């Protein structure tokens, strides 16, 4: 049977085949296109995509390193690390988070507020990311948690390490650590590489100063992760490196002792080795619980710290600014001697007050000290004598000496809380107040009032530099065997008393900077300080040590808060009867033992009234404690000179 349209069919068949041929050619082109694309992706751009693929694949988790410890001079840890028990939770692994929280509440001491906060975090992050329910629970809580662990799906008990301060006596100088804040991340560049969530950083004190080195090297765990960020397997671990540990010059026993003496008072104690600047003790009171800062501060406690009028968070030795009061008289006298304004035996008559351009300048002794020379002026702390001396000396020459001895600038390196203080002079006033200097202000400066501002540490340094014979020292708090130049020099001098070498050559050999023109002047001041502490009539005579071993030479001082009105002066108002806030700050500086000085001390009692009454007795006790421990200290290093 032939198809009637068979010719038609053949034509159609040819048409179809012709068109199919065109289509096939198009297909070949498309094929080439696809192969070309494969070549581009898999051969030409291979490395680019390989990198992208690895970037997808691997993710790193940083591991917080263990913070280095801070030790005292004898190796005792004053900022150490302790094991802490923590509760972590992986929300993904629990079926019912609310029920779990109810159960946790019966086991741990956590409140609803905290749970609410945790829930907020859980909602924010991925369900497999662990959250820290509590970063510090007690052992009994921890053991109870472990007991009930089978009921607590998703909860992980963790043993970790956190900062721990065994004692609060050094809280101020050590500072504290706390969680990294966003401000820390902005301001502290080193945190860029070192930041690990949940890590603590030093906020104040040594913890802050040493932070960069004490944090340690951050470790990491590298994981292969899937598209949802879930860890699939661990590829690499690096535990990091614990932070560097530091040995300080502080003596923990003295710290504790001083802190105990300052209990219930607002004040500070600084003790310094006069030859190498080692800070043996630096205590501020009242102190605070540094441990509280490590695991998130309790709001109530924080408020109580902030509200306390004794300002427990301030390190008074470093950042408290007080007029140096009569303690400056040592420098006024020295400056006057050095500038040949007075001779030691020049006298002035003290009648209790002097008048200048109609203004009255009172001596603290209402009835006056009578005829006063330099030694008596310092011994009795006669204000009128120093008004006269200051008037002759002028404030600019005084400020020069004061600055040389370390006032008016920061004493230590790297403590953000440290204040520089003020040493006023004519150009300073012009610059900062915009007024000319008045002669009356010179008189106020001569007794350490007025614009003068200093920290107790500066006063301690000043005293130390007088005590060591007038040589510049650099206070230090990190233990360092080197830079005992002054000690070496003195040792040499003791061994070779007849060495004809001129002093200045020795000085250049031992890299010392004398702060005097004539060392005899320094000795005069030291002698006057001795009389102030050890001879009848001296301002701290009542608190002397008879024992030669402990005998100290000191200078009292009080920094005025409010100027006495004439009425008050007439009524002979006593400091004790004033409201606490209006009482003068009591100051006392000293060095000991007098015969063979080793240490300098400064004591400040805020609103303590007069230095002789409240500050000197504390200094007396601390001096004894420090000197008793001197042999131990010497034995601990072997670098302390025998006869100095």
């Amino acid at each position, binding site marked *: *049977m*032939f*198809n009637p*349209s068979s010719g*038609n*069919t053949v*034509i*159609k*068949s040819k*048409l*179809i*085949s012709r*068109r*199919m041929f065109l*289509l*096939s050619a198009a*297909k070949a082109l*498309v*094929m080439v*296109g*696809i*192969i070309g*694309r*494969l*070549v581009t*992706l*898999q*051969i030409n*751009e*291979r490395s*680019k*995509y*390989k990198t*992208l*693929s690895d970037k*997808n*694949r691997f993710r790193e988790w940083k591991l917080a390193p263990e913070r280095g410890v801070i030790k005292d001079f004898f190796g005792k840890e004053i900022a150490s690390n302790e094991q802490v028990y923590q509760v972590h939770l992986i929300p993904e692994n629990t079926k019912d988070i609310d029920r779990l929280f109810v159960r946790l509440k019966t086991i741990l001491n956590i409140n609803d507020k905290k749970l609410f906060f945790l829930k907020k975090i859980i909602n924010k992050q991925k369900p497999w990311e662990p959250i820290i329910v509590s970063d510090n629970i007690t052992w009994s809580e921890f053991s109870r948690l472990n007991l009930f662990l089978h009921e607590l799906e998703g909860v992980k008990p963790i043993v970790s390490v956190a900062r721990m301060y065994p004692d609060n006596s050094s809280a101020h100088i050590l500072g504290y650590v706390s969680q990294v804040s966003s401000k820390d991340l902005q301001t502290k560049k080193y945190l860029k590489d070192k930041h690990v969530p949940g890590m603590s950083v030093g906020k104040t004190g040594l913890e802050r100063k040493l932070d960069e080195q004490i944090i340690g090297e951050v470790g990491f765990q590298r994981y*292969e*992760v*899937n*598209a*949802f960020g879930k860890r*699939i397997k661990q590829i690499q671990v690096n535990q990091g490196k614990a932070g560097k540990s530091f040995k300080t010059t502080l003596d923990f026993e003295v710290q504790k002792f001083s802190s105990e003496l300052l209990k219930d008072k607002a004040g500070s104690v600084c003790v310094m080795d006069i030859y190498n600047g080692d800070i043996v003790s630096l205590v501020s009171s009242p102190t605070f619980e540094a441990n509280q800062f490590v695991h998130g501060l309790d709001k109530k406690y924080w408020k109580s710290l902030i509200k306390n009028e004794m300002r427990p968070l301030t390190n008074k030795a470093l950042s408290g600014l007080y007029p140096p009061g009569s303690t400056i008289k040592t420098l006024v006298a020295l400056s006057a001697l050095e500038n040949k304004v007075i001779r030691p035996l020049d006298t002035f008559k003290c009648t209790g007050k002097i008048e200048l351009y109609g203004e009255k300048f009172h001596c603290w002794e209402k009835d006056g000290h009578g005829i006063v020379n330099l030694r008596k002026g310092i011994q009795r702390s006669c204000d009128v004598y120093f008004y006269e001396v200051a008037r002759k000396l002028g404030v600019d020459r005084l400020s020069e000496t004061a600055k040389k001895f370390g006032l008016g600038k920061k004493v230590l390196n790297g403590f953000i809380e440290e204040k520089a203080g003020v040493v006023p002079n004519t150009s300073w006033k012009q610059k900062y107040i915009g007024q000319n200097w008045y002669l009356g202000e010179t008189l106020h400066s001569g007794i350490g009032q007025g614009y003068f501002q200093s920290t107790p540490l500066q006063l301690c340094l000043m005293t130390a530099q007088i005590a060591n014979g007038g040589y510049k020292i650099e206070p230090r708090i990190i233990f360092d065997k080197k830079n005992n130049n002054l000690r070496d020099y003195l040792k040499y001098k003791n061994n070779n008393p007849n060495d004809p070498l001129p002093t200045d050559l020795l000085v250049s050999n031992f890299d010392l900077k004398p702060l005097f023109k004539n060392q005899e002047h320094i000795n005069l001041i030291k002698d006057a300080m001795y009389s102030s502490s050890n001879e009848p009539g001296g301002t701290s005579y009542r608190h002397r040590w008879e024992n030669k071993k402990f005998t100290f030479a000191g200078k009292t001082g009080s920094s005025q808060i409010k100027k006495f009105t004439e009425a008050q002066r007439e009524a002979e108002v006593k400091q004790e009867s004033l409201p606490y806030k209006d009482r003068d700050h009591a100051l006392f500086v000293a060095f000991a033992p007098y015969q063979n000085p080793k240490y300098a001390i400064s004591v400040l009692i805020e609103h303590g009234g007069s230095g002789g009454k409240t500050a000197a007795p504390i200094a007396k006790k601390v001096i004894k404690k420090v000197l008793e421990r001197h042999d131990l200290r010497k034995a601990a290093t072997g670098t302390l000179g025998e006869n100095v």
Partner: protein
Amino acid sequence: MFKARSIQSSLSLKDKILSIDYILVCSIFILGLISIIAMYSTDGGEFKYHTNSHILRFFVFFGMFLTLSFIQIRFWHSQSYLIYVLFFILLLGVKYFGLTSSGSKRWLDLYFMNLQPSELMKIGLILFLAKYYHRISIENINQLRFLFLPIVVLIAPIILVATQPDLGTALLIAAGGLTVAWLAGVRVKFFAYSGLAFISLLPIAISFLKPYQKSRILTFLNPERDPLGAGYQIIQSKIAIGSGGLFGKGFLQGSQSYLDYLPEKHTDFIFTLFSEEFGFFGSLFILFLYAIIVWRIIRIGNQTRSNFGKLYCFSFGTAFFLYVVVNMMMVLGLLPIVGSPLPIMSYGGSSMMAIMMGLGIVMSCKVYKDTPVN
């Protein structure tokens, strides 16, 4: 011809088996085995749900393909319209009884499997139009009244599929139908006119697009537009393929797919997974297999005497080629993500069924190549 016909009708079973195109069968089988390997990799190197059910489907439908090969070409010719109508009814059924998954209604629940009639329609439309153009004489092909029916049978299923919504499949169905019409001799000007009409209607069409469809097209134009959203698939797919390099990362070593960066790795992105693990040469091999399959299909069309067979084989071969290249261009970032499976390789029963059925009819053209259909 008469003689030839008598020979054809008296083909013994042995003759039939011998006349099968073994190169085509082998290529399909090898591709099937490769697809099983790839599926095994998507399951993370274990025989899990996807692998097992893919193996089952491949062998069942491969068996169906061989069985269909022996069905008389006359049967396919005579039942073409009916098959189309049947598939169309199934498509209508989807509209009313379909299963909805991730926002689109594409499946019918047949208890033992979820059937996607739009996949079957790819074959049904080609069959219908092949028969239609086989029957009308060459003079009538370009007459407007004879264009009416093809347009209706083309547009009707496309609208149904596009509104599921499944734009990709709708376009591929259309492509298959248009191929038949063009091969049969419909003048280029009609395509040009309808192309112009399509472009002028495009703004209206775009207004009907779902937001995700618009976003896919925009994403295709600039994948980095939204790297974590719509562009994610294209970017991750390119990363996977590119990082495969010359020799690939190795079997079961494809980190992109293993770590779930690759979306839809069982279905649309199976080529990406394979390309990541076996590299440029692996990809070339797959392309080579597909090229052989298309070549054999077209060769069978050339050998077939009936215009119905020719039209069917050429159109199906072209459509098959389109399915392959559209999928590949999609995962290679050359086309927007429209959601079209890679024939035989991708996981999916309906697609496998439709492709095997289509191949079965091609093979029946080969076995009965000298049999006239009417």
